[in-house]
C-alpha cells in the first residue's frame, strides 16, 4: 500500500470521556496512519464524515453506556450508505465483555475493551488492510 491508511475517530454520542480516543488517535498517527478526529457525533454524521474523508477505518469510543444503542444504528447507517463493506468498523470504550461479543455480532470488525494496547489496534488495522 503506497498511501497511508486513513482513520476516522469519533466519540459516540454525547460521551464526555475522550482520554482513550485521543490516546488512540496519537498512537495511530505515530504508527504512520492519517487520523481524522471529529469529536462527539451521532451515527449519521460519523458515516457522512467517513464518506467525505474517504477513510479506510472508522473507530468509535463509548464509555457512556450507549455502545449498543448507538453502535447498531452506526452499522445500519453504513449499510444504508453502502460503505459497510469497504470500511473497517472498530469500537472501543467501557462496556461488559458480553456486549463486546454482541457488537461483533452486530457488525463491528473488532472491539477493544479496557486494557487494550495501542499496538494491538495498529496490527489489527494492518491485517485488515492487507486483506
Amino acid at each position, binding site marked *: 500500500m503506497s498511501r497511508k491508511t486513513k482513520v476516522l475517530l469519533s*466519540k459516540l*454520542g*454525547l*460521551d*464526555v*470521556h*475522550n*482520554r482513550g480516543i*485521543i*490516546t488512540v*488517535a*496519537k*498512537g495511530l*498517527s505515530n504508527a504512520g496512519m492519517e487520523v481524522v*478526529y471529529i*469529536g*462527539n*457525533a*451521532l451515527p449519521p454524521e460519523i458515516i457522512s464524515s467517513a464518506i467525505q474523508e474517504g477513510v479506510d477505518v472508522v473507530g468509535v469510543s463509548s*464509555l*457512556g*453506556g*450507549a455502545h449498543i*444503542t*448507538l453502535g447498531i*444504528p452506526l452499522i445500519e447507517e453504513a449499510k444504508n450508505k453502502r460503505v459497510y463493506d469497504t470500511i473497517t468498523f472498530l469500537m472501543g470504550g*467501557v*462496556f*461488559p*465483555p*458480553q456486549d463486546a461479543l454482541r457488537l461483533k455480532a452486530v457488525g463491528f470488525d473488532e472491539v477493544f*475493551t*479496557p*486494557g487494550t*494496547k*495501542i*499496538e494491538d489496534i495498529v496490527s489489527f488495522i494492518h491485517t485488515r488492510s492487507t486483506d
Partner: protein
Amino acid sequence: MKEQMKTTKEILHEKLSERKTTPLYSPEALESIRQTVNQWMNSTVREKDRKNWLKTPHTVLRSDIPREMLYTPLANAGLDYQADLGHSGQEPFTRGIHANMYRGREFTMRQLTGFGSPEDTNRRMKFMVDHGATGLNILFDLPTIQMYDSDDPMSAGQVGMSGVCVDSVEDMDLLFKDLPLDEVSVSIVTHYPSNTAILFPMFLVLAEERGIPWDRLRGSVQNDVTLEELIRSGAEYTPPHDCFRIQCDNIQFIRENIPQWNFITLNGYNLREFGTSGVTEMAVAVANGIETLEEMVRRGYDVDAIADRLAFFWSPASDFFEEVSRLRAVRRLWFKIMKYRFNATNPRSMWMRCHVQTSGVSLVQQEPLNNIIRSAYHALSAVFGGAQSLHVDSYDEAYSVPTEEAALLSLRTQQIIQRETGITDVVDPLGGSFYVEALTNEIEKRILDEVDEIEREGGYVAAIESGKLHKKIATYFFNQQREIEEGKIKIVACNIYNSDTEPPPINVFQYPEGVEERQKAKLARLRLKRDSERVNSALKGLKEACKKRKNILPYSIDCARARCTEGELFKVFKEAYGLWEPPTLW
C-alpha cells in the same frame, strides 16, 4: 491577573519567611543522627540500595516524587510542631480541620447513584440509605449533563445511561419522591456552571413547591469551570469567560439565598482521572479557588462570607502514602492562602473541606474482584488523610454502572473502615511519621509551584483558553499509556501475573427497559399541558438577562416554575453567549 500583582507564592513567602521557629528536634539529636546515618549507610545498607536510594513509585496516576529508602528526622530537620502541624482543629490545620475529626463527625458515606429514569434512581437512593449511606449523591446521564432534552436528536440512544435523566422540575420531583429535602444532605452533581444554572433552580423550585424554605436545604453542587471547559468532550461549549462568570454568579446567588448550601466543589477528581498527577490536580483546584475568591472579593464580598461554603473534590489513587500526605499538604496550603493571601479571619474560611471519590481509572476489567482491594486501599488513604466525605468506586467500574451488590460492597468498604478498624478513634494517626511529614512538605511545595506557574501565565481561565493545560494533560495521559504498555506501571492480572484462566463472570448491570420512550412521552405531555405563554415569557426574560451578562439564576428559577425544559435553557445560552472552540488535545 495583572502582571504587577504578586503571585500567591510570592505573598506567602513574604508573610511567612520571617516567622520565628521552634524546631522540634534538638541540634544535638540531629547531629548524632547524622553521624549514625553515615555509619549505617556505609556498614549496614547494601551498595545497591545506596546507589538507588531515591525511588519513585510507578503507579497509575503517579507523580514523579522520589522517595528515600528510609526516612529519619533528618528528612524534616527543621520541623516546628506548632507552626508546621499544629494540633487538629488549630492553625495550620495540617492534622485535620476539627479537633476531634471522626470522633465528632464521621466521614459521610456518600455513594453516587444515577441511572435510568428518576424513579429508578429514587429506588436505588432509598436502597443505599436503608443500608446505611449517610449522604445522597446524584449523577445525571450524559444528555442531562450536556444540557440536551431527552427527546433531542443529540440524546438518541443515551437517555438514562450512566446517570439519571432529568428534563424538568417534574423529574426532580420523581427523583426525590418520599425523600425529605430538609432532612437529608444532597450532593447534586451538576458538574458545570452552565448546567448548575439550569438544574439547581429545578431543585429549588421543587423545594418551594413542597413548602420547604431554601434556608433549610443542605447539600452541594459542583459548579466548576474545570469540568465544563477543560476536561470534557462535548459538542457545544460556552465561552470560558462566560462560564467563569456564571460559576461566580451561581456562588453569589446561592450565598445570598440558600445559606447552608455548598456552592462550589473545586475539581479535583475528574481532572486527575482525565490525566494529571495528584500534585497538578490540587494546583488546578487551588488556582481556580483563588481566582474565584478574588472575583467574589472584587464583587464586594468579604472573603469570610464566601470561603466557608467552598469545598474540594479529590481522587485518592494507588500511591498510598502520597494520597495521605497530599490531603494534609493541601489542607495546610489552603489555610496559608486563606489567612495570608486573603486575610480571612474566620477559622471556617480556612478549612479545606473535601469529598473524595476513589480513582476509577485505577480499576481494571481483568479479574474485577481485585478492584475491591484497590478501592479499599484508596478509601483507607483518604480516611488517614482526613477527608469529610467518601464515594468508593465499585468493582464493576470497567464494565458499567454499579450493580446493587457492587454498590453495596462499596458502602460496606466504608463501613468496615469506620466501624471495624479503630482508625477513626484517633485523629491524624500518621502525623509525625518521618515519611509522611517529609512527603507532606514536598507535595505542598510542588502544588504551590504549579499554582505559581498558572498565575504567571495569566491565571486559571487564561490557562484554559490558551490550551496550555490541555496540552499538559494530554502529555500526561500519553505517558501513562506508554508506561502501562511497557510494564513500567504494573497492574496485577493486567500486565503482570496475568492469568491463563478466566475468572468467574460477574453480574453486570442491566439498564431498565424503555426509559427513553417513557421520557419522550413524558416530555410530549409536559409540553402540551404547560402554559406556553408563560414558558415563552420566562425564556425571553432569561435571554435578555444572558445578553446583559446578568446573574441568570433568578430567571432560570422562573423558567423552572414555568416547566421549561433543560434543553430550552441551553438553547438560550448558546444564542446569547455564542460557542467556543476548545483547544485540541493532539
